[in-house]
């Protein structure tokens, strides 16, 4: 079945930004974010006959992006940890207000699964049940991942000086 390029083009323009942003928040890296978003949209395009309107192609694309991210994580988890510990990718994504910057760097240092749950809960505004379905995790796991993520963020924010000192101290 031929895909209506006009229809898909409109979908692309309206959803690419959001998928890309989700990629940035999950990976903290613009290059990887573009890769994830593009890949998710190519896959969506190829399934357009099945997942296109009247269904919800946006949530299909989001799910593909999450799955790709997870397999990238699985592949690169060791490398990612090393980079995080060394602070190699700690450059700010953009110039940000000071408090947002602090919060963002705290989010970036969360373990991957906690970070994914936090991003889906507070950026994509999904309920815990929806996150659980999307990630294929039990609801209880999602709840505890979210709670631990938030707790860690709270501790980081109430002790920003200690955090900064810790980061400074570890730099060679």
């Amino acid at each position, binding site marked *: 079945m031929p895909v209506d390029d006009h229809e898909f083009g409109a979908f*692309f323009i309206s959803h690419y930004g959001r998928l*890309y942003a989700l990629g940035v928040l999950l990976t903290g890296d613009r290059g990887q974010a573009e890769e994830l978003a593009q890949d998710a949209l190519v896959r969506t395009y190829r399934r357009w006959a099945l997942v296109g309107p009247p269904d919800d192609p946006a949530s299909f694309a989001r799910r593909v992006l999450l799955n790709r991210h997870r397999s990238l994580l699985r592949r690169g988890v060791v490398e990612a940890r090393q980079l995080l510990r060394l602070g190699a990718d700690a450059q700010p*994504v953009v110039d940000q207000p000071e*408090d*947002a910057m602090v*919060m963002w760097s705290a989010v970036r240092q969360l373990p991957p699964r906690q970070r994914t749950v936090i991003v889906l809960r*507070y*950026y994509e505004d999904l309920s815990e049940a929806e996150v659980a379905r999307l990630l294929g995790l039990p609801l209880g796991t999602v709840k505890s991942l979210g709670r631990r993520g*938030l707790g860690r*963020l709270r501790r980081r924010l109430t002790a920003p000086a200690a955090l900064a000192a810790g980061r400074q101290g570890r730099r060679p």
Partner: protein
Amino acid sequence: MNVEEQVRAALESVALATRPEERGAYQRFLRRRARRDRMQAAGVAVLLLVLLAGAVVLPSQLRRPPAVAGATGSPTVDVTAFQWGWRFAYAGTHVSVSGGLGRTAELVVPVGQAVHVRLHSDDVVHSFSVPSLRFERQALPGRVTEFNLSVAEVGTYPGRCGTYCGLAHTEMPFLIRAMPREAFSGWLHTTANAMAGPISLEGRLLSGGSWSSATTRGRLLVVTLTASWCGPCRSGQRALNHVADAYQAKGVRFLAVATQDGKSRALRFARTSRITYPVLLDRSGTIAQRLQVTAVPVTFVLDRDGRIAARLQGQSASRTLSARLDALLSGRAAKQPP
């Protein structure tokens, strides 16, 4: 502001700040999509090519037996199955061994050397089956099945017919005897010498008196092994009589051998079948054994020196008999210029 609100605000502001340029992204998307389509097409093409190549190459390899090392003198054997027995003829020699109806024929092979086998059937479907070698091939009438048989260890390997082929299907035993190479070539040599030599036949005639092939030396002799108890022999005899009538005038001698037969039955058979030439009585079948005959009727053509020039199995032997005789007679004429 609680921590959840702070997270929300921070994520939102990062997302806003990293807003991409969508037009360029869409162009990149189109390129990526095209590349992926090409890769998929190439993948399918490669898969199809692999399957096609496999479908072309593999069956031809299955049909062709592995190359025979003909240069190293590996023998070729024509194995013929018939109702009910086996004949093993070593190509390029006079060696032909047969057995059947309970008498076991031996296929002698060298150890560790591929024997090229051409499998034939004279009548119905049989199969060359050697359970201990885990080997079986069907012998189909009108078709030659070729394979290489290679036995690794000295010993004997009993074989049988593996496809039901009629009443005496279970009476078709044979034996593969594997011997060292030198022993094999020795065996082949002596057997070939024994079989290539002139054959002399003698015995008591049905009509009384004795007969010896010495009396026919210098002439072509057609010997038919037959029997009164054998249906095909009776039905094939009339055609044979016609050939005899035509060629006796040209100097060809004919002889019938009543194999494993009783005198009175054989006499009646000779009378009712109107056999006009001498009939030898071979009560115990010694002549048949010497000629490696296991199924009658079979017709031999002996040349002027008494060597076997042709062996024609079955009741329809007379069809090809005239052609063989013509060839031998004209060969004689050519060799003896006036």
